[in-house]
């Protein structure tokens, strides 16, 4: 298995549309969650969400934008930053040795909804047009990036619910590690599915509703008063390269990926069991040990702020790492839960903390809930020269995935 480095990052998110902005938000605990009037108008219990703000995509070009709905536009903007950040030479991507794995939960869901609405209202299929399919299909972000950048190797999307971004990065890591690709753009992208899917979570009672007047306080992972998670949108793209390929051209990597694990609970579509999370962390740690990893300094946990999941992952961390545990925080209180993009967003946040030597606290963790005690929660900004960091995510349908990064 070849060694794999992360050489570039790009992000579009509720806390910033580039890594500098996201870094500032992480350091200053500047929340991206805001009041969403449409949620109130539509009768949701939760009226807050994390939207992408002020993103300019006109520079991508009108014709290219025609085949993109927001999910692909977010991915394009993030990919552009990542490629420039990595200082990839122009011909590195125009090759069958370059790959793209960009996951999403729901793809161009708004485009699909629009097509159905137009047909229902006009009874005229001609009104639906021809580009809606490429704008709506699950692989729209990955495929648009390939067409735009000239990538000729493996190009596809994947979905493992909220572990999507983590699994996309893990899959890219394996493609390069096994020699199928030398460079890969990977990560996740998600456009707001407020009108199509957010309501499901609201109906389960999985979203907060008593702090609609204080959006930045709404999502409170591990806190006694937590009520649920707040959803958001955006894209996170990483450039992964084979180590030799990267060092040969003088790249400045953020980190080496030294472990990846992915495991399903095999249990239930809605409720996690903890077994899959335990197994995927074990897999990642076993791989890390082969690369010389002896300890984990920081864990960016899934930490959604829901009643059920927060204590379960705390229990898993305690069982696997003992006391004291590695430092633990969740960034969902700050940036929200961006579904298929969240694993990539959190990998990027983790890598920024690794590079800049700090740990962002769990926002709104004021009183640790009794069922979430026993791990080293970070409740205020902490300067720390991290060497290794883990990021894990869990999703519906029993999905779990974990990555370990080590400073180069």
């Amino acid at each position, binding site marked *: 298995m070849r060694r794999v480095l992360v050489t570039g990052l790009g992000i579009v998110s509720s806390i910033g549309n580039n890594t500098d902005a996201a870094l500032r938000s992480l350091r200053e605990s500047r929340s991206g969650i805001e009041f969403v009037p449409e949620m109130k108008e539509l009768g949701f219990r939760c009226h807050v969400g994390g939207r992408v703000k002020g993103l300019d995509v006109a520079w991508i070009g*009108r*014709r290219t934008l*025609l085949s993109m709905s927001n999910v692909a536009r977010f991915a394009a903007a993030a990919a552009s930053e990542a490629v420039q950040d990595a200082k990839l030479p122009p011909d590195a991507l125009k090759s069958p040795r370059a790959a793209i794995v960009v996951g999403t939960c729901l793809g161009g869901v708004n485009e699909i909804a629009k097509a159905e609405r*137009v047909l229902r209202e*006009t009874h*005229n299929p*001609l*009104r*639906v*047009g*021809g*580009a809606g399919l490429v704008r709506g299909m699950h692989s729209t972000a990955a495929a648009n990036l390939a067409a735009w950048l000239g990538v000729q190797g493996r190009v596809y999307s994947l979905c493992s619910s909220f572990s999507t971004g983590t699994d996309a990065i893990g899959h890219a890591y394996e493609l390069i590690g096994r020699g199928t690709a030398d460079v890969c753009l990977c990560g996740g992208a998600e456009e707001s599915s407020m009108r199509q899917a957010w309501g499901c979570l609201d109906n389960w009672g999985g979203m907060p509703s008593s702090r609609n007047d204080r959006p930045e306080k709404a999502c409170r992972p591990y806190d006694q008063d937590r009520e649920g998670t707040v959803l958001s949108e955006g894209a996170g793209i990483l450039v992964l390269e084979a180590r030799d390929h990267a060092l040969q051209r003088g790249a400045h990597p953020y980190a080496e990926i030294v472990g990846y694990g992915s495991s399903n609970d095999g249990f239930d579509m809605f409720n996690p069991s903890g077994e899959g999370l335990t197994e995927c962390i074990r897999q990642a740690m076993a791989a890390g040990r082969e690369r010389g990893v002896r300890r984990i300094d920081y864990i960016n946990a899934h930490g959604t702020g829901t009643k059920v999941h927060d204590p379960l992952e705390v229990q898993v961390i305690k069982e696997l790492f003992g006391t004291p545990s590695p430092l633990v925080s969740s960034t969902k209180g700050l940036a929200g839960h961006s579904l298929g993009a969240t694993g990539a967003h959190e990998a990027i946040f983790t890598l920024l903390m690794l590079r800049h030597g700090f740990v962002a606290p769990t926002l709104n963790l004021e009183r640790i809930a009794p069922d979430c005690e026993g791990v080293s929660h970070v409740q205020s900004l902490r300067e720390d020269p991290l060497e290794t960091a883990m990021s894990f995510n869990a999703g519906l349908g029993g999905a779990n995935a974990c990555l370990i990064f080590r400073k180069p």
Partner: protein
Amino acid sequence: MATVEEQVKEILLNILDVKPEEIVPTARVIEDLKATSIDIVEIVTALQNTFDVNVTDEEAGKIRTVGDAVDLLKAAIAKKAAGGT
């Protein structure tokens, strides 16, 4: 309010890789403006949705130039105003 000609021009600029000065009434959509078959579908869709009129396959198939598209739309708008669909 933009004229039909101005709105048609904006639609073509959004879909095709052309300069504004290339969009003249006599410009042939396929030969001069290099529209592909998918572009044609998107153009006809956008024209219908922008002006809220219905255009049949047969009518769309007769469009050769920008001027043809403008004339077809004006006729469809007039028909709709007169109570047709």
